[in-house]
Structures are given as C-alpha cells and as structure tokens.
C-alpha cells in the first residue's frame, strides 16, 4: 500500500467560521495506481490534494492521518513536511502555469529548487536532460523564460521538474483543463508514462474532465461537499456507478455528437450546500432523487463490492 489517508479533516478559517472543505476522508492508493479525483467545483478536491503536501496559512488541520509507504506524514507541521516535499510527495498545483516565476529562466529556477532541497544541480542535470528529451521538449528550454513557452510546453516542464527526485506520490491538479485537445492528449499520456517509467509510484489526478480520467486513471474517487462519495475502478465508475451523485455527474457529460437542439443535457439541479454550515446527514440529500428518511443520518463510506467503496444508504441498505 502506497498511500493511506484516514479520517483527514482540514478546514479554512474565515471570519464567519470554519469552512469544512475536507471533512473526514478515508481512502488508500496502491503502488502504481493512478487515481482520478473528480467532483463539482468547490467540493474540496484541491483542498484534499493540497492537504497532503502543504497547508497554507488559512488552512487548519483538524484531525486524521496520512501514511505514505509506511511513514506518517506530519501534514499539520509545515516545517516537518519539508523533508517530504518534492522528495516523497510532489504537487503540480492548479494554475501552476501562471504561477511560474516570470523573471527566472527555467534552468535557473530548477537549479534553485534543487539546491533548496540540498541536491546538486550539476549531478542531476544529465537525468533532467534525459527527461526533457523524453517529454519531447527541446533541451534549450532551460535557457528560456516561462512566458516564451506555450501552455502545453510549460505544463510538461512543470511535470519534469516536480518529479525529478522520483517522489512516491504526485498530485496533479487540473493540469490539462486549459489545454487544447491535442496538447491535452500529449500531457495526459506523459503523466501515464511517468508512472510506467517509475518516476513516480502513484498519482492523484484532479480534473473536471472525466473523459480524460477514462483515458488515464486506474481508479476514480468522487467527492461531494467535502466528503467522499464513491471510489472504484475507472470502468466501474463510468459504467456501473452506484452512488446517485456519481450517476448524475456522469450522465451530465456531453459526449461527442450530442447536440443541444436534439438532446438537451441537464446538470444536477440545485447547488452544493454551503460548507460553512453543512447540513447534517447525507450532504447530497437536498438534491438526491432517492433520498429517504434514513438519509438524515450520515452514510458511512464503506465497501459495497470488491474494490468499490460508496457512502449512500440506498446502496448499503439502511441497516448497514
């Protein structure tokens, strides 16, 4: 087992109170597993991803544990996490492309990052060049500024840099959503090849594009309003989801060939609840067509079939 997260809770401090953006997540990721993470905007995907590597000043660790390859990660301790970042866990943040320092050449930036981790740029450079070749970039990107690279080039460069020290876990947050279809494909396939080459052991790929996950992920985890809703192998989520939310999410995807004039797709009626004062019981209750009296209690996230977890009373039976 590569990653084991148990009852992890991370809230945002605000003047109005705590925003319960990640409210008790328990799941694991196996060696070599690429896990997709999907769910509506604001459901806590980035919060989950960021919690595994860096809590910013506004985030508050409330409870739970994270174990990576048998080591407890001190996620509540910003200092203590330093020795794991980049070396064991690495992240490609949402909007990484716009966050690259515009005044530094790519090579300089990489060198600084490595030195800050106590590594020698000179020693790692041959491997860096090999990987730049591998993702199909020109070696001279090292001498260029971020602004000179296209979105897809930047994205692949960020991937190379963040996995240089062969971390065990890579978290990629929406790294394909701003790219056009052909670049998207190249970047997604690069992700998979990094796993295949052993540059990273396992991966969390956060995206709104479930069709990209169908192409790349082994399993998919669906979140709703700060909680986990369902996790299963990719094919099962796409073709045999059990949680009502997952089913509605999947059926709202426009497939190639569907047209508004012929078949009007519908989103999920209503919007997710406020995470400041989330409702008790199942958080999907107000929008769920199957809700019944038991749903005022919180459904546990439990095994419902082989390799298949879900949190729904309709699926587990109300006496589970």
């Amino acid at each position, binding site marked *: 087992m590569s990653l084991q997260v148990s009852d992890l809770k991370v809230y945002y401090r605000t003047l109005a109170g705590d925003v319960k953006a990640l409210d008790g997540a328990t799941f694991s990721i196996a060696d070599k597993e690429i896990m997709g993470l999907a769910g509506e*905007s604001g459901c806590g995907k980035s919060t989950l991803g960021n919690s595994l590597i860096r809590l910013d000043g506004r985030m508050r660790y409330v409870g739970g544990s994270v174990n990576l390859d048998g080591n407890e990660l001190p996620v509540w301790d910003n200092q203590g996490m330093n020795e794991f970042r980049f070396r064991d866990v690495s992240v490609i943040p949402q909007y990484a492309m716009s966050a690259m320092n515009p005044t530094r050449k790519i090579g300089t930036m990489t060198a600084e990052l490595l030195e800050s981790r106590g590594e020698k740029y000179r020693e790692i450079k041959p491997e860096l060049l090999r990987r730049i070749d591998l993702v*199909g970039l020109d070696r001279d990107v090292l001498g260029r500024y971020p602004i000179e690279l296209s979105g897809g080039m930047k994205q692949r460069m960020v991937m190379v840099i963040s996995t240089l020290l062969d971390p065990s876990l890579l978290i990629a947050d929406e790294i394909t959503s701003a790219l056009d279809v052909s670049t998207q494909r190249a970047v997604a396939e690069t992700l998979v090849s990094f796993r295949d080459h052993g540059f990273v052991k396992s991966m969390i790929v956060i995206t709104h594009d479930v069709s990209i996950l169908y192409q790349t992920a082994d399993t998919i985890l669906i979140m709703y309003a700060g909680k986990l809703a369902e996790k299963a192998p990719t094919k099962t989520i796409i073709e045999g989801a059990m949680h009502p939310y997952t089913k509605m999410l999947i059926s709202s995807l426009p497939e190639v060939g569907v047209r508004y004039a012929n078949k009007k797709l519908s989103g999920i009626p209503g919007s997710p609840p406020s995470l400041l004062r989330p409702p008790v019981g199942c958080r999907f209750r107000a929008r769920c067509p199957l809700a019944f009296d038991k749903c005022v209690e919180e459904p546990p996230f439990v095994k419902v079939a082989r390799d298949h977890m879900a949190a729904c009373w309709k699926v587990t039976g109300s006496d589970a």
Partner: protein
Amino acid sequence: MLSLNRVSKYYKVGTFGGKELAAVRDVSFDVDAGEVVSLIGESGSGKTTIGKMVLKLIDISRGSITCDGQDVTGLHGGAVKSYYRHVQGVFQDPFSSYNPIFKADRVLTMIRSEYFSDMARSEWNDKVDAALRAVTLDPGQVLNKYPHQLSGGQLQRLLVARALLLDLKILVADEIISMLDASTRIDVLNLLAELKGRGMGILFITHDLSLGNYISEKTVILRHGVIAEMGATDKVFGNPTHPYTKALISSVPQLHKKWADVDAEILARGGADTGTCLFHQAYPPTAPVTGKGAVKQDSSDLPPTLVKVEDDHYVGCFDLGAATCQVA
C-alpha cells in the same frame, strides 16, 4: 449582426518589433442574432486574438469588423461605452480578471457605477440575485468574499453573471468552460443556449469540440490564424472534409473509447496520412509532442481560399480537386 470582413492581425515581434507574426489571416464570418458560432482551434491558432479585436481590446491590422452595420474601429468616446453595453467578453483565466485586494463582487458593483448609477438599491440587488442564480451561484456563498476564498469555477461564473447584468447583443465567451465541472458546464452551456433563444449572438471560443458541437449552429475551425473549415455545425462535424478537422476530431477524449482504439480505427481505415495536402505543408501541425512553438507565418504569403463543398459548408484549400488534394 456582428460581421468580420477579411480580418487580419499582425503582431510585431522580435527585437525592435522588426518582424511580423500573422496571428489571424483573412478571416470572414458573421455572428447573427440568436446564433452561437463556435470558433475552434488549437492553442495559438488566433482564437483569443479574434475575440480581442471584436472587443476592441486590440487594433485590427487589415479588414474590418462591423456591428449592426457600424464599423467598430471608428467608435470613440461615448460610442465605445455604449458599444460595451451591448458587446461583452468573458475570458479563460478567471483569476486575471480579479484584483486580489478587493472583494470579488467588485466586478459587479463596477457595472452598477458605470451603467446603472441611478437604479434603486433594491432593484439592483434583485438584478444581481437573478444574474447569480442564472449561473447557479448562491448569492450568500459568493458575495462579500475575496477572490482567494472562492474556487476557480465560482470566480468564472461570477464573470458570466457580470456580463448578464448588461443588455447584451453579443457575448464573446473565450474558453469560459474549461475551468468548470461537468455539471456546471452543462448549466452554463444551457444558459448560453437560453440567451441565444432570447436573441443574443454568441461567439463561443473553445478548444473542446464536443462542447462546440453541442451548442452552436455554426462552426469555424481555425488553424494558425486561417480558416481550415467552416459552416453549419452539423455539416462540419457530420461530414468533416478537411484532413485537419478530421485529425482534431480524433484527439477528442471520449468516455467510452480510448485514444489507442481511435488510433487503431484510423489506421485500419488507411491512416490519417495527410500526405500531399498543400494546406498541411503550408500550415504543418504544431506537433505538441515535439514541443516546437507555432510556426511563424509572415504577412507576405497568401492564405488558402475558402471553397464551397456543399451548401453552408466551406473548406480552406489551395487546389481543391487536384491530384495532391486530400479533401474527401
């Protein structure tokens, strides 16, 4: 209503601006009232440049854009303000539209001070409420928040809501969907469809072919600033004629078919070889895997001509029907 007539845009690049990069070349199409036109192309193909010219954010190098018969280049002063009352844009990266030191809803209050300063507060609040609900935002969750307290999708929808406050005739929506989740995407798309039902014309810029196909009546496929194929959406997608359009359609990630299987099918049909196509030679694929930047065309060489393949369906080709021609 909105009409582009042989529009070109050359950017000055290189030291001292000594070189010209042809970002858009000889592009003509119309966006009528109650119509969605999707402008599809890869990164760097000139989509945003076209949107910016329509929004008067950059100059037009050659050709003209007219709105209701009026040339937009000639608008100055007060005429520009009333142009923006009817023509607005929403852009891809929601963060760049916000100033982190102000509350996010300042983008709405600015519209009030600019255009509705004499409207009663309660009336204004109702208007804002309706606009937010139209984009499925809960006013309580997004008003009075700083940008960093909202997710990317929430910020993006706030910008669409902002555009809805005005009495729009034309909306330029530049990649507004990519930051949204599937369910919100459909809500926003259906909202755009509703707006077109009420007579708005929408220039829907996207790299996502299935979204363009879902919503638009007309499709323009752009490649390195020139039109590769254009026409009624069902014709362009139902009977893609240009080898480039076909290649693009095959890269779309599908939900029940893997890329490798799509490749295998193409190979089984004899391959996607664009072989002798002159268009492909003049505008070679950017080859994302090799990471070379967009090819720089200069303003001296001529774009291909648009040839009619059937009613409402045109293709950019140098010599349709010649032995070298791959259009089929």
